[in-house]
Structure formats: structure tokens, C-alpha cells
């Protein structure tokens, strides 16, 4: 049996082409208080004015954010939980507890996934692949992060008075979810490029932007090469959370490879907060790319203001144990191409 190259879903080891009409049928976001004061405040579906979101622990609050994002996304798609085949979700907490507890409360089968802050596009790409292949009709791709749970997991107690350097980033309190299915009017998911783990020897856990920039560059280069595209084929290219330090590094590296990113390139880590919100270099966390993509970008695409968008979510795959043992920070980035219009 020969494979028709025009319709083959595998373009390379890293890039998949979605051959059927796979779309984001709806999406939703839920965020905490600081994000609700940021420049994208009007694009969120649900906002909370306290970090506990009415629950008794930060972990439970994060779960509530993910539950909200998923249920609102399902409702927006005009579906009920019974009609969704699968949740593909992940977060930053040990053993992916936000995803598991959320999937239990909503009652939809779960595939938990971990890609640190790249989880948003990791889950979206896999959801699109399963829908494209016919293993599911409808899948929810979701992820979440919470500033206080992430600080607790990776750093010091939130009220500890240690000084952070300006290269540090602020973990977004929020969750985003997308319903992926065949047909409809939402943006088509056309390509996904899965990243390689890249480690350039950066060891400072308070400087994730520098650590992650080469991973983003690696994935973007693979994407342009495999799809035969250039940055100018897109109206917008965003990376997940490189922030004020990683963003110019990635831009300069791409320019050196002959890709001019001017005019089309932005970073979600620079979009979630305004500079006067005291967030050091910018936003980070799974929710950084998720709330921007499933809020602002989806809105812009549905209004026709953006046609072709490439989201390249970046993740730092360190653990508190690995960096305390002196290991450098391995990073990854996954990119998904979205195309508007019916």
C-alpha cells in the first residue's frame, strides 16, 4: 500500500499535518485576580477576585479554574459532558493532580499529559491527532497553573521574604480549555510540530526565559522547514512564556537563521500583564499560553482580525530535585498552527 504524499499526515519526525476538518469548536478561560486586571481582562470567560476562588486551598482553587474553563468550553460548543469523549489535560503539580481531580468531578475519561508550560499545545496537538484519526469525535484539551501552587511546588513559600531577580517570572493563575472536533466554524487546526528537548546548560531557575528560548527556536525552525512556510505566512506567531528576556533572545536567534520575525512575533508572557503590575520579566506557567490562545487569539480569529496564527508553547522541564542536584534546565516547545475562516 502506498502513501499518498499529498494527504499523508506525517510530514517529518516532528510535524503532523491534519488532513481532515479538525477545528477548535469552542474555548474558554478562567483566571485569578491579577490576570483580571491585566490588559486582556475583557477576553476571559470567568474571573475570580481571590486566589482561593472560594475554595479552602490553592490546589482546590486551581482545580476550580480548570473545571470552569472545561465546563464553559463544553457549554459554548453546545455539548454536554456525556458527548465529550476525552479530556487531555495537564498542570504543574506533582502527579498532575489538577487534571485528575477535575476529570473526576466532570466525569469524562482522561489522558493526563505533562509538558510543563508547553502543556497547552501538547494537549491541543494530541487532541487534534486523535480526532483527525477518528478515535474520538470530541476532545477537550486543557491545562492550568496557579501562582501560589507553583511557588509552593517549585520555589519558596509565597509569604517568604526572599528577593527575586528581575529575570524571574510570574506564574499565571488561570486555566484554558478548548473543545476539538470535526467541522463547525472555529479555527482549523492545520499543523502541529512537536518539540525536541533542548538543554543549553542554563541552571538558574529564576531565568526560565533564557533557558527556554533555544527550545522555541528549535521547534519554530522545524515548523518552517517541514511546512515550507515562513513567519510572513502567519498574521501572528506567539511563544508561550519567554517573557522580557527570552523573547529578544529567540527573536535574534531566528533572525540569525534567516527568519525575520518583525511585525508578526509576540510572546504570551508579555501579553497577560502590563509592565506596571510588578511581574518581573513577565508571565509564565501553563496558563500563560492557554489563556492568551483560548481567550484573546480565539476572539481575534472569530472576528476575522487574525487569519493564520502559530502558537508555540514553551516549557521548562525541571523539577525542584533536578535543580537542587545542580542539573541544568531541559526545555521543550510544541507548536500548533490555527487557521480561521469557514
Amino acid at each position, binding site marked *: 500500500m502506498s502513501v499518498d504524499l499529498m494527504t499523508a499526515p506525517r510530514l517529518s519526525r516532528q510535524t503532523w499535518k491534519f488532513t481532515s476538518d479538525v477545528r477548535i469548536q469552542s474555548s474558554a478561560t478562567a483566571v485569578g485576580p491579577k490576570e483580571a486586571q491585566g490588559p486582556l481582562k475583557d477576553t476571559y470567560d470567568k474571573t475570580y477576585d481571590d486566589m482561593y476562588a472560594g475554595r479552602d486551598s490553592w490546589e482546590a482553587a486551581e482545580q476550580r479554574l480548570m473545571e470552569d474553563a472545561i465546563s464553559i468550553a463544553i457549554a459554548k460548543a453546545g455539548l454536554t459532558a456525556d458527548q465529550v469523549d476525552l479530556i487531555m489535560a495537564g498542570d504543574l503539580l506533582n502527579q498532575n493532580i489538577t487534571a485528575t481531580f477535575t476529570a473526576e468531578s466532570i466525569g469524562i475519561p482522561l489522558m493526563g499529559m505533562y509538558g510543563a508550560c508547553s502543556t497547552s499545545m501538547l494537549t491541543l496537538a494530541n487532541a487534534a491527532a486523535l480526532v483527525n484519526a477518528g478515535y474520538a469525535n470530541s476532545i477537550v484539551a486543557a491545562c492550568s497553573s496557579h501562582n501560589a501552587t507553583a511557588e509552593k511546588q517549585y520555589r519558596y513559600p509565597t509569604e517568604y*521574604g*526572599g528577593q527575586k531577580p528581575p529575570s524571574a517570572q510570574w506564574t499565571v493563575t488561570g486555566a484554558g480549555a478548548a473543545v476539538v472536533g470535526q467541522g463547525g466554524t472555529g479555527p482549523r487546526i492545520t499543523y502541529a510540530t512537536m518539540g525536541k528537548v533542548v538543554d*543549553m546548560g542554563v541552571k538558574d531557575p529564576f531565568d526560565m526565559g533564557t533557558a527556554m528560548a533555544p527550545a522555541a527556536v528549535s521547534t519554530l525552525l522545524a515548523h518552517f522547514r517541514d511546512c515550507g512556510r515562513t513567519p510572513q505566512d502567519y498574521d501572528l506567531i506567539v511563544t508561550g512564556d519567554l517573557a522580557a528576556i527570552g523573547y529578544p533572545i529567540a527573536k535574534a536567534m531566528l533572525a540569525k537563521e534567516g527568519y525575520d520575525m518583525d511585525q508578526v512575533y509576540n510572546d504570551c508572557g508579555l501579553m497577560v500583564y502590563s509592565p506596571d503590575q510588578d511581574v518581573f520579566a513577565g508571565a509564565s506557567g501553563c496558563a500563560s499560553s492557554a489563556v492568551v490562545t483560548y481567550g484573546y487569539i480565539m476572539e481575534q480569529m472569530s472576528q476575522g482580525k487574525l487569519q493564520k496564527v502559530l502558537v508555540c508553547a514553551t516549557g521548562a522541564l525541571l523539577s525542584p530535585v533536578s535543580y537542587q542536584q545542580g542539573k541544568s534546565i531541559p526545555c521543550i516547545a510544541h507548536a500548533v498552527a490555527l487557521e480561521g475562516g469557514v
Partner: protein
Amino acid sequence: MTKALYQQHAAKYQPQRNVLLNSWRAFWVGGTICLLGQVIQKFYMSVFDFTDKTAGNPTVATLIFISVLLTGFGVYDNIGQYAGAGSAVPVTGFANSIASAAIEHRSEGYVLGVGGNMFKLAGSVIVFGVVAAFVAALIKTLMRMIWPG
């Protein structure tokens, strides 16, 4: 691009940290905390009948109380971000490290959560403080044995 070359390249993008300004902030905030301690000590000596030596304990206890209160109200971490070592080195910083860890792990219960985690950061200070004190005492004792009187 090699790892070394990348790190060299990326170093150019690192924001400059103003060491002089940071040192000044640490100096004035740390100095103010010590001044406050001095005022409290004088207060205990003049109002209650404490001596120079016995006023130490209630003074430290009062500073710890203030620090824990500010930690609970979510203020001390903001002071720490501004002052750096200025608010980390005095006893108030030590109290903050314990109180913040206790608050952080309250949701995991009193025994394994609060009790098991409150010395997560302060434990190091205690361990190395005791070891350093032991070494200092050992040196002092040996000196006394070599040069008695």
C-alpha cells in the same frame, strides 16, 4: 551553537542589577529594624525593670511577633523584595521563614503540614548555626587550655 557560546550570547540580554541601590535599600531597612529593636529594648528597660542583658529575650520576642504578624498579613514578602538581605538577615527574617512555611502548608494538616514543614527553610539556619557555635566554642576552649588565664 554550543552551550558555552549560547550562554555567552544570552548573557548580553540579562538585565543589569543595581548593586549600589540594592545595598543602600538593605542598609536602611536592616538598620531601621535594628533601630526598632533598640527602641523596644530601651522601652523594656525603662518601663519594666529589665537590665541590659535580660531585656534581650522580650525584645527578640516582640520583633518576632511583629514579623509573624506582617507575614500573616502578606506584607513581609513585599518588604523582602524591596530590601533583600536587609529584612532577611535580622531575626525578623528568620521568623518570616518559619511563619511563611507554616502558613503555606496549613492545608496539609497540623502535624505533617505545619509541624513537618515550618522549619523547611529555617532548619538550615539552625543546623549550621549550632555547628558554627560548636566549632567556635571548641576553638575558645582549646585556646583557654593552651593559654590559661
